[in-house]
């Protein structure tokens, strides 16, 4: 039989979450190709939106794909290129970041960024009281970061909790460490930190420990679901007591669904929005993948 070619395009992993995503994608590729000999999955990652647009062109002109699973670097710039793929008749599955024109994708699988911010805020609100001080370390300036941050701030509004300052730590451990060091020098009284991301949180924790300010009920909330973080939650860490899930496995879900569209008899379409679950010591075990790099 004709092999069915499915292109899978996503950003080059430059931080742990994306690496996790890459790992899940590769696992899914192996699994699905073993399962269906006539399915060929082609995984391509790209370092920037422009390169990703080029990669999409190559998937069409060279590999003549029948379906595309794409995690766009950014929504806006990739809308047109994905539309061009669509015009070749390929099935389109969009992951994580929605395109800026409706109706292009046949299938949509996504995490929920505003929800991540909101869930984090709800947790922190619950542990703090009016007059308490927190600092925020943000990611790389992007829409994702904005969505998370705006939802967080909206939820915090009116609680009387002071947000002393927020700086970009670029989803990077080193930046998290240095920004936190400077926050600590600058603000003598900090009660909690929203680090938004587990990588940043690692840097924050190191800075807190270095300054000896990790006691007194201080806590840090990260996000994404890094396996080390989940492990330490399971072990009952108090400094990072919870995590907010933003599952890197969503790409695998998307690949599964896309393959299913060819293999199952009924039509497959629709939107799959994954929740931003709060991971606590109680439920942590079910989110723990020790083999994943993330």
């Amino acid at each position, binding site marked *: 039989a004709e092999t069915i070619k499915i292109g899978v395009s996503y950003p*080059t*992993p430059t931080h742990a979450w994306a690496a996790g995503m*890459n790992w899940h994608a590769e696992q899914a590729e192996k699994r699905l190709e073993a399962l269906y000999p006539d399915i060929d999955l*082609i*995984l*391509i*990652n790209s*370092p*920037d*939106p*422009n*390169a990703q*647009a*080029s*990669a999409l*062109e*190559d*998937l*069409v*002109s*060279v*590999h*003549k794909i029948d379906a595309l699973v794409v995690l766009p*670097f*950014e*929504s*806006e*710039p*990739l*809308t*047109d*290129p994905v539309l061009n793929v669509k015009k070749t008749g390929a099935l389109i599955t969009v992951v994580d970041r929605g395109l*800026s*024109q409706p109706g292009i994708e046949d299938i949509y699988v996504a995490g929920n960024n505003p929800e991540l911010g909101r869930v984090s805020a709800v947790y922190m609100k619950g542990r703090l009281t009016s007059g308490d001080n927190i600092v925020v370390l943000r990611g*790389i*300036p*992007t*829409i994702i*970061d*904005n969505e998370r941050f705006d939802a967080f701030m909206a939820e915090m509004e009116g609680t009387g909790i002071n947000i002393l300052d927020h700086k970009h730590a670029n989803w990077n451990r080193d930046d998290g460490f240095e920004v936190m060091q400077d926050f600590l020098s600058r603000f003598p009284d900090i009660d909690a930190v929203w680090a938004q991301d587990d990588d940043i949180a690692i840097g924050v924790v190191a800075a807190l420990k270095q300054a000896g300010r990790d006691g007194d009920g201080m806590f840090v909330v990260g996000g994404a679901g890094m396996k080390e973080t989940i492990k330490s939650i399971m072990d009952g860490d108090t400094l990072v007591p919870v995590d907010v899930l933003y599952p890197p496995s969503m790409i695998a879900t998307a690949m599964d669904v896309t393959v299913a569209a060819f293999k199952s008899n009924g039509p497959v379409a629709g939107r799959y929005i994954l929740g931003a679950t709060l991971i606590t010591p109680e439920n942590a075990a079910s989110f723990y993948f020790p083999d994943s790099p993330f």
Partner: protein
Amino acid sequence: MRFDIKTAGPAIALFLLCIIGFLLNPAFLSEGNLTNLLTRSAFIGIIAVGATFVITAGGIDLSVGSMAAAIAGVMIIIMNAAMETLGPGLATVLLGGGCSILLGLGAGWINGVLTTKGKIEAFIVTLGTMGIYRSLVTYFADGGTLSLDFAIRGTYRPVYYGSVLGLPAPVWVFIAVSICGWLLMNRTAFGRYCTAIGSNESVARYSAIKVDRIKTMTYVIQGLCVSLATIIYVPRLGSASASTGVMWELEAIAAVIIGGTVLKGGYGRIGGTILGALILTTIGNILNFTDLISNYLNGTMQGLIIIIAVWLQRGDWGKAKASKS
């Protein structure tokens, strides 16, 4: 004799790459892929033509990628704003293009003046403006993405996606810029002056060359090239963000040097630069052709190929070593 080898170096490297591409996947030589390749090379190629002048005159410009992002951002803001009065037609697009060119010339002029009048090393000036432009576009986009109104995109689209006589519009722009660049470098006094300044600034000064003015001009040309590249880039993705044009500066400089221009200045080859840009794009293209190699090792392959491509080309110089000072 020696000249043939120098000129042929990048061409041979490109040829070998094409053979490798074809062997990996015959679709490499399909018309569609070749067209994609050429169109893609246009961005870096056009910018690299400008960079050839800057480098030939002994300068360097690290700001081009950020400059492209900033110009794209401002262009989009202006066009979106103009739509209300001018509508989504040609007028708005022309306004956007005009502004892009003005911004490019201005940005280049700033780099040039800071370098020449301010007597600050070009590396520092353009490292500074690189940071400035990049953060400005983030600021304008409020950390997100600036996107062109979809109504305008319809009008503007052909500038990237349209074809004339079977060749995509960006390729025509690339060809036009290359020819102008080549003429400017090889057939005008300006090109001669750039070479002279890069070769020995004191000699240039004693030879009645207005060194500061010519150097500034090279940055202005660089700015113009960036704005042209941006004009054809914007309709491709219809947006600009902090990640637009990241690393373009290194790619442009790499294209220039792969093409045989000397980083310390004094010797510039526009033809080589164009081949250099094609080589870089082809490497990226070939890596998309195969999943033999772990994606993570793309950078390794890219690095190896660049080094080998240049080495092949320089290898022959060994024979002409005696003539090397």
